């Protein structure tokens, strides 16, 4: 089992943002979480990645309990994520955004770096090579010397996914990756996520507001509304669920 979440609950003051959330994500699964704005989707991600500590509930990554650990420890345990509002290191180069992500794999210490020892130079050359290979897989090698913040929106999104994958995660969390994209960019994004799912050995959990994206990518989805799971199951069935239609549209018309 990649990621197993049981009875995850979080309140802010009087507001229960997430209540009794459960999830079973297999090693190579690609699942989606959908729901209207303010349903608690991003809070789930913030709980999984340790940005917030859960009030109740368990988060298991493989055999390891990660709930309550600090964010950086959870990331090093193998959970990587992207953000709804892209969070790149805007003033760093595209290449450095990736090389930075390999910091935990840099096989040298402070003294090696201070004196540029042979170990440092060998390891740094390896990091650079791996970063360039990684960029090439995402079609961003030509951009390596540009500032990350100067890339067009679609490529920033792609770089952010590439950066998350550079840490070598077991689980990748994508927070509304299609937000703010035009239809052509959405089309490219769907292909990208499918390729990532095929080529990397990991599980993907996707939050998305745009139903067509989830329909195309995920066989299994669960629907959140007001912090509660109101439906779960195969995506084509879930979207016909009257509860879901009501939550999503507030009217009797099936979502596109």
């Amino acid at each position, binding site marked *: 089992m990649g990621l197993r979440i049981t009875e995850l609950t979080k309140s802010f003051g009087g507001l229960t943002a997430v209540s009794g959330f459960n999830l079973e994500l297999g090693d190579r699964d690609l699942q989606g979480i959908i729901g209207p704005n303010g349903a608690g989707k991003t809070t789930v991600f913030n709980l999984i990645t340790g940005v917030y500590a859960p009030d109740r509930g368990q988060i298991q990554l493989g055999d390891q309990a990660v709930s309550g650990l600090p964010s*950086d420890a959870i990331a090093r345990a193998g959970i990587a994520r992207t953000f709804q509002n892209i969070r790149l290191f805007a*003033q760093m180069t595209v290449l450095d955004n990736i090389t930075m992500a390999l910091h935990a794999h840099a096989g040298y210490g402070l003294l090696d770096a201070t004196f540029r020892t042979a170990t440092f130079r060998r390891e740094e050359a390896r990091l650079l090579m791996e970063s360039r290979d990684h960029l090439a897989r995402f*079609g961003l090698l030509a951009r390596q*010397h540009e500032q990350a913040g100067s890339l067009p929106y679609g490529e920033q999104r792609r770089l952010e996914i590439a950066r998350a994958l550079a840490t070598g995660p077991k689980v990748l969390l994508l927070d509304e990756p299609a937000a703010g994209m035009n239809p052509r960019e959405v089309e490219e994004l769907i292909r990208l996520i499918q390729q990532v799912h095929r080529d990397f050995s990991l599980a993907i959990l996707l939050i998305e507001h745009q139903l067509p994206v989830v329909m195309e990518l995920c066989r299994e989805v669960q629907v959140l509304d007001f912090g509660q799971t109101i439906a779960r199951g195969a995506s084509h069935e879930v979207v016909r669920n009257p509860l879901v239609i009501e939550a999503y549209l507030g009217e009797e018309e099936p979502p596109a």
Partner: protein
Amino acid sequence: MSTQPQPEPTTPPPESGLPKVRFWMVCALILALALPLQLSVDAGLFPDVLNPYYLHLLTIIGMNIILVASLNLLNGYLGEFALGHAGFMAVGAYTAALLATKVLPGAAALPPVIGTIGILVVSLGGAMLASAGVGYLIGLVTFKTVGDYLAIITLGFNMIIVNAIQNIEFVGGPRGFTGIPKNTNFVAVAVCALLTIAVLRNLIQSSFGRVWVSIRENAIAAELMGVSIARAKNWAFTIAAAFAGLAGGLWAQNQQFITPRSFDYIKTTEILVMLYLGGMASLSGSILGVVAYTLLMELLRNLLSAFAPQLAEWRMLISPLILIIIMLTRQTGLLGNREWRWLRPRPGA
């Protein structure tokens, strides 16, 4: 996996046909000039041309480069706003002064040059260790504070250090610490400044430096990439403090007399002015900022004392004025985020 046809990777920006200047060449040049210069001044050669005053200026510039470049690590690369650099300098200065006068004078029995160098190396090492220790503690205490809060805490720490020293009779209290042997000269300061720039450059162009800059750029993203912010920040504070301590140790053994008030927030402000004048996140900027500021202040001093001696004290008004003008007109300073070629990483290395 490729999502689009692969264009040829771009090469790094083309460089002009001039021979490539490397860091070691700059070091060699400076030392090749510094040594004969120092020896000539010591021997009193060409007193009309080689005024010891110029050497004194160069020495001040060297010590200020160490201070400003190390503060740049915190304020420029890590993106914090630390306001206590003179405090670390004070720890180093008093540690070195104590070591040089109370612990090590026995080494004076050694042959002259070797004895002096020995005392200098040990006292500077002690100064760096002591300030690094204090920097580590500050890093621990400030754990997750950022922005305004960190600025206030570091400023408070600066004041605590100065006030504490003022109340320790053993090191002279408010009267200051006198009788420190003059163990440094321009050559020693130049070597230390070059070493500082080399070490800071090496760290900044490593995984540690990339992590520091990533914290500045987006702390949440850095943390979710597995960076322990507290640890990375603590390293930066420890290293920056160690170099401020080095500058303090040199300062004490150059001025031969230190008082707690030489390390109060006014000194911190002066370091900040030079830093912002030169530009954030640029070692070249730190060097240029120090040189420009020091020369400007000396020029003003000479001009005022020549033409308007009654206005001589107004000189000190210029420095805050410079800071205001920079902040209003050119916030990146002279060289913000840019490096001279000899300080840039080698492409592909």
